[in-house]
């Protein structure tokens, strides 16, 4: 405890003696009658006065709360401390674990710590980690091991749990279909006898100590494919150890105190809590020379994905030129664990009571976070906006430091973004290259305060409009023809697969192969050429230099582009008017880049790399650059394959959404 708390002063009681004296006087019989009379009158008078005063007081108090409290320096809010649970000296915990088709629950000493009977939800293996000394829940996870790869996630998680912790497992509905050998072996190594033989629709509960004894296991086999095993209820006792035994003995430093606080509360963060050689929580990356974004606030928008947040903050705090004091993490909801992560890193966090649902809620959370950011840093002209499921490149701040003056000076710019929608492993090449694009990629970007305060904030979609904030920002009414600056190779990496609009398949298809810069201190090339007019000169120069590809070949084939390196090639596609993206979309599809909506265009021009050559695509005749097309060349036209397409397409919910 760092706070110095004085003992509360004891107040003397004076009232009592006065009351007694009065009572003795009353005993005096002679004066009694008279006294009664005067007393009655007095009482009446006092009542009236007291009542009037009360009315006045309440009125005044209602209006002048401030004034009143200012009088005597007392806090107007009685900050009554909630009485803490008495220290539990009991050495034994009663644990109840229930597993069935439609419901699971876990109770520790009569307190339900898990209860899930929601329909169509929570299928798979539920895992709870308890602190072996206090019995507190340190982690709660569910792995849908009916589905592929979830068992790998479970193994990863279990490996990260410290030795000695109490582990509780229970299956809801089905947990064996994709529970592979490796996972079964891990469960077996924890002492489970049943795990290796778990099969279709079996019910199962297990309680054990990691690296130690087994407290109980129950299992009910499913009699037939079409039915579930009978519900099982395991009741057992767990013996608690001393707090000393449950903690690591790190040297007593400020950092380790934060670590200790964190590690005694939550589990599943691996080496940050290992007793021997824990991973650092302070990174001290090299400062940037002439850092133009040192004083730019960084808003990290988070939900309840603390493990993501942990990974994200690690990469952010490791980026050169980071200024931790400017970082604020905005958590959408009153979630404890994300806040624990924020505190582990010594950052400041703000929680936001949810007000709306789904997309609109994210949108309102964004608004509140952005407004708060500019309130907290009133001097700031910009804010960096990040999300909890991003890795941040080591040269993220260096990239911004070199480009931010453009956002300040060039009014035709909407944002600077660290993300190139089309920057995949096979289509991005040059870490020093920047583009101007008409789309707003998000995923790590810089927002100008004036844009927010003067334009966006006043008309931000209200909660009842179920709009995505980023879709809204991309609408022409907001963007007003302005462009964003993006790097060829992204400075952020989108690793999240559990999100509102995310699923594993979608992530694999559109994000996994995204290129991410890992080179420190990249010197950006010719930044001035990104200004509005300069950029046109630059594009004309490029197109002038570019070799026209053989349009008779199939643009989807690798052979479309010669086996060269470092050359500039151009191809022309059909684009009847500004909004005609028929051919582009098909081309994007066969090139395996972002095709769910149109991204990365600048006046009907797309720039990417193919086989290490700069590859330009011009939409004819809509693009002003069409004039560069030799008259002999017929623009490529590609049509979407007929009908069946719809069935194979990515789920509609994922369409065009990256957040």
């Amino acid at each position, binding site marked *: 405890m760092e706070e110095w*708390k004085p003992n509360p002063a004891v107040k003397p009681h004076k009232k009592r003696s006065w009351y007694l004296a009065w009572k003795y006087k009353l005993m005096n019989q002679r004066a009694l009658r008279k006294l009664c009379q005067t007393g009655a009158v007095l009482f009446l008078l006092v009542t009236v006065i007291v009542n009037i005063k009360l009315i006045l007081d309440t009125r005044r108090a209602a209006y002048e709360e401030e004034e009143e409290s200012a009088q005597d*320096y007392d*806090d107007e809010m009685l900050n009554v401390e909630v009485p803490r649970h008495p220290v539990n000296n009991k050495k034994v915990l009663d644990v109840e674990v229930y597993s069935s088709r439609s419901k699971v629950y876990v109770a520790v000493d009569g307190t339900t710590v898990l209860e899930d009977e929601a329909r169509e939800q929570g299928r798979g293996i539920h895992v709870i980690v308890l602190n072996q000394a206090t019995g507190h829940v340190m982690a709660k996870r569910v792995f849908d091991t009916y589905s592929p790869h979830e068992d790998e996630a479970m193994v990863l998680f279990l490996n990260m749990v410290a030795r000695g912790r109490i582990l509780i497992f229970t299956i809801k509905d089905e947990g064996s279909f994709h529970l592979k050998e490796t996972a079964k072996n891990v469960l077996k190594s924890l002492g489970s006898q049943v795990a290796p033989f778990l099969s279709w629709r079996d019910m199962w509960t297990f309680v054990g100590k990691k690296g130690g004894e087994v407290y109980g296991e129950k299992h009910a086999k499913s009699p037939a494919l079409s039915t579930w095993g009978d519900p099982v209820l395991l009741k057992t006792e767990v013996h608690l150890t001393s707090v000393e035994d449950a903690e690591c003995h790190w040297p007593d430093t*400020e950092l380790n105190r934060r670590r200790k606080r964190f590690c005694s509360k939550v589990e599943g963060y691996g080496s940050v809590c290992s007793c021997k050689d824990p991973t650092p929580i302070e990174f001290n990356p090299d400062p940037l020379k002439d850092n133009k974004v040192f004083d730019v606030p960084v808003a990290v928008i988070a939900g309840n994905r603390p493990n993501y947040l942990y990974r994200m903050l690690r990469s952010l705090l490791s980026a050169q030129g980071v200024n931790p004091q400017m970082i604020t993490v905005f958590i959408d909801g009153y979630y404890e664990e994300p806040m624990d992560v924020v505190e582990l890193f010594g950052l400041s966090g*703000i929680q936001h009571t949810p007000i709306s649902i789904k997309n609109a809620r994210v949108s309102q959370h964004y608004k509140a976070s952005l407004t708060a950011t500019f309130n907290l840093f009133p001097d700031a002209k910009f804010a960096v906006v990040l999300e909890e499921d991003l890795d941040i490149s080591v040269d993220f701040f260096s990239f911004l430091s070199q480009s931010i003056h453009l956002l300040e000076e060039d009014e035709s710019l909407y944002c600077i973004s660290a993300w190139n929608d089309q920057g995949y492993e096979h289509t991005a090449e040059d870490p020093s290259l920047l583009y101007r694009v008409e789309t707003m990629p998000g995923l790590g970007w810089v927002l100008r305060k004036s844009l927010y305060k003067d334009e966006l904030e006043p008309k931000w979609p209200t909660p009842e409009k179920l709009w995505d904030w980023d879709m809204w920002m991309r609408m022409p009414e907001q963007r007003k023809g302005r462009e964003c600056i993006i790097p060829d190779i992204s400075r952020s990496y989108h690793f999240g697969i559990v999100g509102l609009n995310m699923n594993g398949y979608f992530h694999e298809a559109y994000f996994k192969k995204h290129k991410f810069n890992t080179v420190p201190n990249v010197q950006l090339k010719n930044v001035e050429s990104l200004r509005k007019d300069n950029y046109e000169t630059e594009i004309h120069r490029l197109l002038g230099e570019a070799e026209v590809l053989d349009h008779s070949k199939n643009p989807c084939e690798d052979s479309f582009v010669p086996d060269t390196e470092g050359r500039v090639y151009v191809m022309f596609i059909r684009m009847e008017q500004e909004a005609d993206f028929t051919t582009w979309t098909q081309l994007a599809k066969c090139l395996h880049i972002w095709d769910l909506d149109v991204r990365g265009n600048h006046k009907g021009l797309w720039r990417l790399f193919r086989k290490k050559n700069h590859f330009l695509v011009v939409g004819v005749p809509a693009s002003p650059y069409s004039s560069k097309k030799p008259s002999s060349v017929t623009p490529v036209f590609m049509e979407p394959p007929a009908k069946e397409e719809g069935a194979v397409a990515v789920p509609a919910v994922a369409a065009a959404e990256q957040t």
Partner: protein
Amino acid sequence: QNGAAFSKVRGSQSGQDSTRWHVVRKFLGLISTHNIPVYLIDPLILGLVDKDIEQIRSSPDGLSPECKYFCAPRDFTTFALLEKTWKHEVGLFRTAEKMGFQWLKIINKDPRLDGMDDLSGMEIPLHYIFKLASHAIHLVVFYERSGNFLWHGPLRLKQHMDRKFVPFRKLHFGRYPGAYEKPELLLVSIDDLKVQIPKNPSSFLEEVSHSRFLECRYREARAFFQLYSDDASLDAVEFRKKAKSLLHLAALTLNNLGVKFWLSSGTCLGWYRQCNIIPYSKDVDLGIFIRDYKADIIPAFQKAGLPLKHKFGKVEDSLELSFQGEDDVKLDIFFFYEEDDHIWNGGTQAKSGKKFKYLFPKFSLCWTEFVELKVHVPCETLQYVEANYGPEWKVPVKTWDWKSSPFNVQDNGVWPIDEWDNVIQIY
């Protein structure tokens, strides 16, 4: 026990207290080992310093022959800390304890998040008190707020806190929250101690006396919007944007002239009731005491691109100026006349020459933050608003007649015809 390092103090002249000097020196030592930039804001000391300011400025390293400033026996010495320049490190307090200081931290909600729906951040430190022997250092934490100013919070003790830790009532800061300009600082040596002080102590002291800050009533504003949902139409957004920039321009112009003004009428009601500009109000209203009137006001606004639309009344009576802002948004400036028991401003009907009078109870001025601006409002805002709009001020009224709607309007005769050319000027 500290040994008297200050040579003259050893003589222990009457009324001098070396304890204070020693405690301040220790505190400054503590602060400098942790690289925390503090500056002296103690009104009593700054008052003394101000008298000798020329001499102090000219000899930054000068040794003083006697202890003039830090030896007057007082319970407190007050310093300020800019939160922005401080990395909240815990080490400071451990060192302080080792040096023998007892310390008290007063934290509370962050008002910069108050306006927001349901954001809850960590509580922020507002005041620190470091006590050693019979003297205490009061360290006031200043935060930057939107509107380019510094803010400090009120000092409120929580239940478990020791009310007798120091005589809180004697503190110079903390009775109310306060708003200040960002000061320019000067490193000086006084009484052989190197401290930073505001470069211009007298103007700082002037600020101290008028620093009281009122937070907008965000909770009530939210309740208001629950009852009457906010107008989010494009027109409303546009009007608010224009009104905000007009208010910014007006504030800049008047501040440059050194003319004190406050939010009046509808603009004041908007602040008090909904913490925002009322979208259908169609103008921006400011009040100025007639004693602060300057002839340069009109040319200054014209220079700022706001032509005079009309001028009613005269300096001696019922003066009112109206400037034309961008697209129909008008800036109305009412001049207020102080009487023994009330304050009033006047109105004039152009076509009839009729005069009106609007009466207000007396009020003082407080700072507040409004649309990213530090501006004055009447401290007794409720009385002001109630006088103007009556007890039903909480209910939005969209049809408004300035001659009959205000609760406090009175007929005030008619301008004599021969004065009309002077007192009714329309452009």
